[in-house]
């Protein structure tokens, strides 16, 4: 079995496509999370492969179906954004051989494949459909929802795993070289001018503050709220390992990475995996958990004209993304009970929610909005999941939270100022990501 990358035709990336053809006909019915860790300790049972198997088994159990009923898997093969396996470092064969290996020994250690997962989950005896999704759970969700709606699979597991190794993101390789190729030197990514990972976002944020008369200090309530919500997310890294509040004073005292982005504006890389089980709305009605219906999905595919997106390019793209999201779901922004848009880097979030027009927001309004009641107890919850700032870099807390809130399973994190009926989640980048609208009812 060779798994293909999902074709671009599975995404809804332009405006004018109308309401999603499978609106309310696909549902999420199972959630599974692994434990978290800061870094991999080298043992087979803590590898990203083992965490992924655990998450998938938990999703199946949560849904209350038998494993042989799973007939589809959508997986994100890439399991890092910066902790890439050094090609000069030998792959630990004791870990490879602790599992049933695939043709690529990095599977389960520094990447994932449907083939490796199936080999190591013998209970999955009827998988007929596998597909890869790029980058993030946000993409895998869209692909799986479309696949179930199109009838390619009936009970589909969606998986995203993350590994994190010793060392710092992107400090090796070309960053440590004395001489680099001319094309790399000129960018757009890691050029000889040395932009950190958060540079582009920090630059957009700097321009945002310059244009609208805002400042970095105004992020503090958002950061405090995100950590607070994250500490009520028992599946998350901070709740499990470092149950520390983040006060505005803590936040504002943190060291800069690329001013105006500081340490806490960057999410912390971790080991973790999550899996969801999607099925048809008809079948979902008879399963263990309350179904969470998917009303629509949308994708953004913006590109910068030059080295890094300008604020103008970001705002044009997020505005378009908002229109696509509401068009696909057949709703308006006023139908949203809450939002769970991407936040890791923290300075992404205001771009996303302004693009939505969340609670009547216009460009330049978000940081003032952060000074109001944005808590889960209020009428205008912002990122009740706490996002990646609140629980570590996974890019999936937002989705899990939407499902748990709508199912009434969010525990201490439950939004109480609004009735959780319709929510949106997705990301990562304002210039490129995938977004899903979740609902308590199919219509």
């Amino acid at each position, binding site marked *: 079995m060779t798994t293909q990358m999902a074709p671009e035709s599975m995404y809804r990336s332009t405006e004018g496509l109308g309401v999603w053809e499978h609106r309310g006909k696909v549902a999420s019915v199972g959630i599974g999370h692994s434990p978290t860790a800061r870094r991999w300790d080298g043992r087979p049972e803590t590898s990203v492969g083992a965490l992924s198997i655990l998450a998938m088994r938990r999703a199946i159990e949560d849904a209350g179906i038998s494993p042989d009923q799973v007939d589809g898997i959508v997986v994100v093969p890439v399991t890092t954004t910066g902790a890439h396996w050094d090609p000069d470092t030998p792959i630990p064969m004791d870990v490879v051989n602790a599992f049933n290996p695939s043709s690529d020994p990095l599977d389960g250690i520094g990447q994932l494949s449907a083939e490796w997962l199936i080999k190591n989950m013998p209970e999955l005896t009827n998988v007929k459909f596998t597909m890869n999704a790029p980058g993030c759970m946000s993409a895998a969700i869209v692909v799986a929802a479309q696949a179930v709606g199109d009838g390619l699979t009936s009970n589909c597991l969606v998986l995203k795993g993350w590994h994190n190794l010793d060392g710092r*993101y992107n*400090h090796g390789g070309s960053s440590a070289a004395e001489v680099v190729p001319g094309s790399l030197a*000129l960018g757009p990514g*890691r050029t000889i001018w*040395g932009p950190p990972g958060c540079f582009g976002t920090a*630059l957009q944020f700097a321009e945002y503050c310059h244009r609208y008369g805002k400042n970095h200090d105004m992020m503090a309530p958002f950061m405090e709220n995100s950590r607070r919500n994250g500490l009520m997310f028992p599946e998350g890294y901070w709740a499990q390992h470092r149950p520390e509040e983040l006060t505005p004073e803590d936040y504002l005292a943190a*060291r800069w990475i*690329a*001013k105006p982005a500081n340490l806490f504006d960057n999410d912390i890389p971790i080991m973790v995996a999550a899996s969801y089980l999607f099925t048809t709305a008809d079948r979902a009605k008879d399963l263990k958990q309350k179904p969470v219906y998917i009303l629509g999905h949308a994708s953004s595919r913006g590109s910068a004209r030059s080295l890094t997106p300008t604020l103008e390019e970001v705002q044009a793209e997020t505005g378009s993304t908002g229109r696509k999201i509401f068009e696909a779901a057949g709703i308006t922004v006023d139908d949203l009970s809450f939002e769970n848009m991407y936040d890791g880097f923290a300075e992404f979030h205001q771009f996303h929610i302004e693009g939505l027009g969340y609670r009547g927001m216009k460009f330049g309004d978000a940081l003032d909005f952060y000074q109001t009641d944005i808590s889960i107890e209020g009428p205008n919850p912002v990122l009740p999941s706490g996002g990646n700032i609140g629980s570590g870099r996974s890019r999936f807390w937002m989705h899990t939270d939407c499902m748990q809130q709508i199912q009434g399973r969010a525990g201490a994190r439950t939004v109480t100022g609004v009735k959780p009926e319709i929510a949106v989640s997705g990301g990562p980048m304002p210039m490129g990501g995938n977004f899903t609208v979740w609902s308590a009812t199919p219509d």
Partner: protein
Amino acid sequence: MAKQGVQPDELTKPFWDAATNGKLVIQNCTACNRLQNPPLPRCGQCGSGDNLEWKEMSGRGTIYNYCVVYDCPIRSLQEGQPFNLAVIMLEEDPAIQMYSHLPGTPVDEVPIGGPVRVVFEPTANGQVVPEWEVAA
């Protein structure tokens, strides 16, 4: 603060050769009359690689905005932290950007929107690279 050395490759050699001669050139599609940076094998608009040329620029621009880098992934730049990292908009087309450390401008004293002019400085292996200074 010397930047990493640069080994020109096939795509970018004209850019580096021009820099060695004290000129700033940017890739241009003659069919679209459209500049593009970073360089690409094909025009980002029409998709053709047949009409790409290297066009000399005036060497004037303005500062879009900037950050101050305190935690740089590039080892050779770390001893110079913190440093300015600005995005320059070229006079010929403000949508075309270049990075700059703004040599001579104190950290965090960057005149956003202010004029800059190109200068040339050697990298760690002697290859010359365009940089930008705030114009008086």
